[in-house]
């Protein structure tokens, strides 16, 4: 069980590194799916099987498919890969990477220096999560519903194409 966690963690980190270094967007998304699947395995080893299923369904399923649809709508070609390669030069990424790695070193120091109480591992199944979700966290569930509603309305409003007010014959004249 412990070895499973460490292997899945290594796969997740490697896949995420591949995501952030790809030039081609679809390749990055494929590695992103691998990363989400590895994190789902991590959830399973940590005793959260329902969350592992949700991770696969919503992250690896819905969100990645949504991004793929948008990439297909934008109709990107080989030129965009070349542009991406120009945008991501070592001169650009070295500085932020070093500063962020300093932050990571600090986090590692905090986790390893503090003495945490001993772990009592027991699987928390979906039943307990459901009871907590619809008991003390009822308000949060309702707020989540409102957030999703606002997301739907906002996405529709932003994604709507503007109606053309100019007639197509006039448009041809205006182009000339």
């Amino acid at each position: 069980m412990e070895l499973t966690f460490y292997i899945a963690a290594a796969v997740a980190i490697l896949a995420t590194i591949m995501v952030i270094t790809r030039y081609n967007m679809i390749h990055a998304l494929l590695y992103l799916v691998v990363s989400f699947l590895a994190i789902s395995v991590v959830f399973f080893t940590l005793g959260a099987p329902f969350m592992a299923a949700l991770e696969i369904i919503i992250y690896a399923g819905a969100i990645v498919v949504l991004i793929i649809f948008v990439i297909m709508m934008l109709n990107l070609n080989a030129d965009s890969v070349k542009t991406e390669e120009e945008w991501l030069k070592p001169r650009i990424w070295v500085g932020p990477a070093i500063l962020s790695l300093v932050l990571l070193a600090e986090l590692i120091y905090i986790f390893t220096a503090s003495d945490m109480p001993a772990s009592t591992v027991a699987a928390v199944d979906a039943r307990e999560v459901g009871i907590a979700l619809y008991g003390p966290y009822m308000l949060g569930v309702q707020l989540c519903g409102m957030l999703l509603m606002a997301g739907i309305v906002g996405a529709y409003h932003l994604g709507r194409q503007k109606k053309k007010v100019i007639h197509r014959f006039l448009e041809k004249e205006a182009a000339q």
Partner: protein
Amino acid sequence: MNGVTLEAGLLLAAILFILGLISVLIRRNIIFMLISVEIMLNAAGLAFIVAGMHWAQPDGQVMFIFILTMAAAEVSVGLALILQLYHQLKTLDSDAASRMKG
């Protein structure tokens, strides 16, 4: 049962979060920045799950469900914004959208 420590789980979450942060900082393509935000949100959810495992409480998983909902709403609105931006500016360069004109 298993010997996965709190430190190991939190370390994984921290590494994934830092990778997402690096990607947000170094990328100019706006879709890649959105993907990186997803990675960071996922890492935050992982930290909640690890903490819930450590104290054997369901609250961590409840928070993960809330983060999941937020990520779904965020990515739909974000992608709609990206579509509008691409139609207006004909590029995915985030620097091109630095000036708001009406």
